[in-house]
C-alpha cells in the first residue's frame, strides 16, 4: 500500500489530471501530449501483482478488456495517505452521483470494532473511441542516451537555475558527459556532469544500425526545454530509482526514463526553439 501511495503521490506532483488505464495485468497512468499540458507527456506502468493482493477487473468487452478513467491523482493521493495504517484497503470503481473510485479502508481502533472510512474520488470514464490517444508512446529515435546523475543533485542545480532563466539546455554525449546550461543577457551558467555512463541500448535500439554506432562519442546532442517542466519532473521524485536514463533527440525532445523495482515512468519534454 505504501508503494502504491508513493507512486500516486509522484504522479500527483507531475500533473493535475491524468488518465488511468486498467488492464488485467497492469495499471498505466498516462498523460498524453496536448497543448493543455504544455506538450509534455507521461507514461507510467505498474504491474498490479506488485501492489494488490486481489485484483479483479472487467473491461468494456472481452476484446477490449480495459478500463480508461480520467482521474485527479491529487485526490487519490490524499485519500491514500490518510489510510496508510489501515488493516485493509479496497479500491473499487463505483457509480454514485457520478462514477467514482471508492477507497474503502478499515482502520484499527482501540475498541474491537474497526473504523470504516470511505473516500469517493470522482472520475470520468473515457469512451472507447478516444482510447487511441492513450497508447504507449514509441521509443523515439534518440541521438544520445545517458544515465542521469543523482536526481537530488540534479534537482538542486535546476532549482537554482530556475531563478535565473526560463529555459535550460540539456546536452549529453555518448561519453558519459552531460551539461545543463542556461544563458541570459547577464550570465551563463553551466553545470557539468562526468562519468555518468551510457546505457547499452546497442543492438536492439539502433534499428537502422547506422547513426548510433557511427556517432562520435564526443558529439553532444542537445535540447532546449522549459525549465519549469524539468523542475516539476524532478520535484516529484521521492525515491531514488534503480535506473534513471535520459534520451535526447537533438533539438526535438528529452525523454526521461525512471525504472523502479515495481514501476517504470517515462516523461517526454518537448524542446523549444
Amino acid at each position, binding site marked *: 500500500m505504501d508503494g502504491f501511495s508513493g507512486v500516486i503521490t509522484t504522479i500527483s506532483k507531475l500533473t493535475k489530471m491524468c488518465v488511468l488505464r486498467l488492464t488485467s495485468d497492469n495499471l498505466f497512468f498516462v498523460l498524453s501530449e496536448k497543448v493543455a499540458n504544455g506538450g509534455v507527456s507521461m507514461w507510467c506502468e505498474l504491474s498490479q501483482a506488485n501492489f494488490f493482493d486481489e485484483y479483479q477487473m472487467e473491461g468494456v468487452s472481452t476484446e477490449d478488456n480495459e478500463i480508461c478513467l480520467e482521474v485527479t491523482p491529487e485526490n487519490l493521493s490524499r485519500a491514500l495517505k490518510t489510510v496508510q495504517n489501515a488493516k485493509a484497503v479496497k479500491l473499487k470503481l463505483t457509480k454514485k452521483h457520478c462514477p467514482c473510485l471508492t477507497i474503502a479502508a478499515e482502520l484499527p481502533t482501540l475498541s474491537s470494532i474497526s*473504523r470504516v472510512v470511505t*473516500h*469517493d474520488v*470522482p472520475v*470520468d470514464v473515457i469512451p472507447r473511441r478516444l482510447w487511441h490517444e492513450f497508447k504507449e508512446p514509441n521509443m523515439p529515435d534518440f541521438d544520445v542516451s545517458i544515465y542521469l546523475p543523482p536526481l537530488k543533485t540534479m534537482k538542486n542545480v535546476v532549482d537554482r537555475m530556475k531563478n535565473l532563466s526560463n529555459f535550460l539546455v540539456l546536452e549529453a554525449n555518448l561519453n558519459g558527459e552531460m551539461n545543463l546550461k542556461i544563458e541570459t543577457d547577464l550570465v551563463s551558467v553551466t553545470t557539468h556532469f562526468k562519468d555518468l555512463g551510457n546505457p547499452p541500448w546497442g543492438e536492439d535500439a539502433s534499428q537502422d544500425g547506422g547513426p548510433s554506432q557511427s556517432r562520435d562519442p564526443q558529439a553532444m546532442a542537445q535540447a532546449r526545454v522549459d525549465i519549469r517542466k524539468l523542475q516539476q519532473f524532478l520535484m516529484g521524485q521521492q525515491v531514488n530509482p534503480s535506473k534513471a536514463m535520459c534520451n535526447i533527440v537533438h533539438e526535438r525532445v528529452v525523454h526521461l526514463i525512471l525504472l523502479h523495482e515495481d514501476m517504470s515512468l517515462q516523461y517526454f519534454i518537448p524542446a523549444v526553439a
Partner: protein
Amino acid sequence: MQKRVTFVEQLEMENVLTKGRGHVSTRSMDPERGGLESLPRHLGRETHVDMSPSNQRMKTSHIPQTLMSVPFLQHPALATGRRRHLCSIANVYSTEHMRQQMKRHYLNVLHTYIQSSVYTSHLKAFGKAVHALSRVGDELWLDPKVKGLALRSVNSAHSAYACFLFSPLFFKNYNLRPATEHGAETVKCKLAMKCVLPLFRCLNSIERNVEQCQISVGSPDDQVMIQFFCRHGITKTHNLRFQESEALQAVFASHLCPNVLKAPARLFGDVVMHFPSSQEEVTLSMTPLRVGLKNYCDAVNDHMKTMYTEMSLHPDEFDYFHVGVDSNITFCLKELRGLLSFAESHCLPVSVYCGAAGKPVCFSVEDMVLEATVVLATLYDPESKDPSQSAAMTLTDATQRCAEAAVLPVGSCEANIGEPEDIPAVTEMIASSQGSPMNVPPALMLPLLHTAGVCVPEDHCSSANSSPASSTICSLLFRAVSLEQDNHDSTARPPVLAFYSDEEENMEEDTDSPSL
C-alpha cells in the same frame, strides 16, 4: 589528585631498586610519583598489603570481597598490575561514588525544575491557545475577570466562537485590582490577532528562551503590555494598543443538549485527519448505534470534482456516549481544528454537546486550570421534520440593529426574569463561514443573560419568516451593547475592574507603574 595507572610490576622494579624489597607490594607507593589510587583490599594469597603511613592520604575505596573472588580475577595469568588496573576501573563504579553522582544529579534536576517550573509549560499552553483562537477569528478579546482570564474570538461571519478560560491558578500570580471609583467599567479589550499571534508563534523558542511572561492591561493608555523575560537578561516588551469594544460572550446551555459525546482528543484528531484541510464543512450524524462523519458538499461546489469522504465510529470508541436525539448536524471544520490540536497536545478529552440540526454545537475541553470551548453554528435543515426546531427569527445586520432587535425579546421577557427557561432556538440568519449567504438560518445562541429567559415572541417570528435570508447577515451570538445597560447581573459581569499584576503571567496595572 592525579591519577596515573602504574603497573605494579613496574613499581616492583622500582621498589626493588630503591628499597630492595623482596615481595610485591600491592599499594602503589610514592605519592610524589602520582601513583595509583590505592585500594586497600585483600588481593589474595600471594600479595601482601602494606599499610604504610604514606598511603593513608590516598583516597581509598572498598571493593567487596565477593567481587574480588570472582574467577576471572583469580586467573593465574592475570598479572597483578593488570588486576589492579581492573580494580581501578571498578572504583569508578563504587557505590559511594555512584551515590554522590546521583545526589548531585538530583539536586541539579530539582534546581532546574524549580527555576523553570510548571509555568513554562503553561506559557506554552497559553501560546497554543492563541494559535487555536487565531484559527477562529481575526480579533482577540482579552477579558480579565475574577474567575480567570478569558481569551475569546469570533469569526467574521459570527458563526464560530471560541473561548479559553484560564483560572487564576494557571498563573503564577494573578491579581485583580478591586473596582475603582469609576464604577462598573470592565476593561473590554480587543486586540488584533495579527498583533498577538506573532508573539506566540514559535512555541519551541519560547519554551527554550523565555523564563517569564508578564501581561498587563491598563486602561489609561489603552495598551496591553506583554513582556517576555528571556534568558541572558533579555527582556522583550510589546505594547499593543487595544480597542474598546463591547464584550463578547456566548452562553450555551450545554446541560440542555440532548446529545453528549466525550472522547480522547486523539480520536478526533484521527477522524479529522481524513478530511482535507481545505474541507470546510462536515456533517456529523448521530444515532444510538453509530456516529458518522462525512464531508458536506453544497450545491455551489462542483459535484464532479470534489472528493467525498465518509466514516463511521462505534459508540465504544467514546468515553461517554449519550444520544438522545438522532441528528445530522453540519458545521465548519476549519475553526475546530485549532481546539483539537490544543486538546491533543495536552491529551485532554474533548466533549461534544449538540442537538438537532440548526442548534449550535459545542466542543469543549477542560482541565483543572483551564477550560476551552468552541461553539459553532450548524446548518439548519429545512427538510428535517425535527419538532424541536423553533421558529426562526431574523435579525438584521450590524450590531446596532442587532441590539435593537435583540432588545425586543428581552424586553418582552422581563416578566419572566427569574424563571429558568429552556433556551429556545433563537435562530438567526447568518452567513456561512465562507461568507456566502445561507438560505436557512442556523439556530443559535443567545443573549448572555441566562437569568433572563429568552423567549421568542411569536408575532415577531412570523413576521420575520417572510423575509428571505439571503440578504441578511447576522450575528450569531452576541449580546448586543444595549443589553448591558439593561440588566446588571453580577454573575454575568462582575463590576470590577480587572487589573492584574502578576509575575509569571501578569496583568499589571498601568496606573501604578506606567509603562515605559
